[in-house]
């Protein structure tokens, strides 16, 4: 019920959702088997940083551009070239358009 067959496989989202919900129920059940005397606030709930104080949330939070700096830094060569192409100048946009038009004309003119 509710599945699609792509011709090479099948995907049934209802079955998947039921399985997902069932897994969450089982995980919740396992959690309920644990100790019930654990407190989340006070000394038991604090983060352990080798005895140092935990910095405030404003200082800890990593903001927008810095979140993936490793990946962006690794691809720095690619980004330098590709961002340089997005110049913002209208003549360059038209040049790309006419260039692609020329390439397509040549290909369509030559191919049988």
């Amino acid at each position, binding site marked *: 019920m*509710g599945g699609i067959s792509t011709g090479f496989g099948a*995907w049934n989202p209802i079955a*998947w*959702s039921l399985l997902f919900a069932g897994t969450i129920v089982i995980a919740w059940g396992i959690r309920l088997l644990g100790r019930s005397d654990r407190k989340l606030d006070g000394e038991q709930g604090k983060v352990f940083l080798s005895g140092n104080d935990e910095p405030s949330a404003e200082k800890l939070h990593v903001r927008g551009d810095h*979140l993936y700096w490793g990946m*962006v830094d690794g691809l720095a060569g690619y980004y330098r070239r590709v961002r340089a192409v997005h110049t913002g100048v*209208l003549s360059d946009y038209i040049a*790309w*358009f006419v260039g692609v038009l020329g390439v397509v004309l040549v290909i369509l003119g030559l191919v049988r």
Partner: protein
Amino acid sequence: MNALATHVPILVIATPLLGAFAAPLIAKLGRTTRVAFSGLIAGLTACFAGLLAATLYSAGGQPIVYVLGGRVPLPSGLAVPVRIMLEVDGLSVFMALIAALVGALAVLYSVSYWKERSGGALYDSLLFLLIAGVFGLVLTGDMFNFFVFLEITSIAACGLIGFRAWRKRSSEAAFKVMALYTLAGLLVLLAVGLLYGQYGGLNMAFLAANLSGSMLDRIALALLLAGLAMKAGAVPMHMWAPEAYGEAPAPVAMVLVANSQAGLYALFRILFTLYGVALSVTAIGWILIVMAVLTILVGVTMALVQSDIKRLIAFGAVSQIGYMLLAVGVGFAVLATRPAFGLAAIQGGIFHMINDVACIGLLFLAAGAMVRAAGTRNLNAMGGLAHDLKGLTVLFAVGAFALAGVPPFNGFASKLIIYESTFRLSPVLAIVAVLGSIILLAVFLRAFQAAFLGPRTVGEAGRVPWTMTLSMAVLASIVIGFGLFPGFFIDKLVAPAANALWNGQAAYIGAVLGGG
């Protein structure tokens, strides 16, 4: 009722046109009247589009031909159809449903989005003109009429992009987009002129019946391909798209995405129904596939480094156009040999069209609400919106996960079909598609973390108005509904559309020229 069903194709186009021209007059009577009138027009248009879909599906998918100003497509004694015709088949009605959904939701969202500013009547007028233009693009059966509606959408779109004339960047974006759209439209007109000069007719079915593969036909196809691919936003002609979607008001960005998809629809109509196998399908198909692969990769990687939330979503929208081009390009490349995976690829691409509109629309509307609440568009300055706007958080998360192809949402269903069918043509294509999805998930996780998580930066965020939440909720319910029941929607909506491209050339021609 019978008269209504007969005339519904032209009513779908005429109602928003009436709304566009009457809105400034009705607005003189006060704000409530203006809002009521726009709601009425949007609702009527959606009803007419639904009626058109019902009429077509109950007639078994046979194309409906509506002759403007006459009764019979081909009057006796004439060899060439002489009137302008609207020809509606499975794919046209699918696109019309998308346009109706997007138009109605944009009008609903604009009610409170545009509350405190003046010029609401002119905004409504331009919005209805854009919606009417998109309907005209997808329903027309005549090449020159197609050019006219293309220009209508260009003018209305640029008017809306530059609507906030007090912003520096809006005028810049509007000028650039107008210049590019006009150039593309003029080259499309040149192609239409070439086809008319060769065959003496402008009707699409007539041209499809008489097309041979001569050199002028190839030049016309090259012009149409380049022009329409640029309008859809394929790399390397995509650079106007982040500027346009980023600078337009949020509901307009959603309608602009539908506009780009209408350009994609026109490209598919010309390739499959007009040209078919007259030229080398492998070469043209692979041109589309190469452009699509570049679009996916450049779109998602550029989205990863944007700081402006709307520009980020715009690059995401550009990459999704790549998925649709990839899937239908694969379907076109194998049109000569017709293996089963070609039809599956086309179904995946077309299903992705409506999924993409729902997800990107939801994201753009959410971005509009976020920018209003936070007062800034820069992701580096936003933060902690989840403390106050829990509903918006959930809606943004649903849209982002659905677009990135996470089960069980609708994006996963269509992308699964695309992965598995493009794999059959070349494994590299499926690898690129999956890679694009993964990086897109990273993009939206970053946006979500920057905007919603963490401590508050701007104090208490105001509540999101109920009309904005309602329009986003409608889109989210479509995302979840299409995700949980993909089989039902594929059978009812997508299969007739895909069939119209794969097998439908003969039926399309026969509906106008009479009996195959």
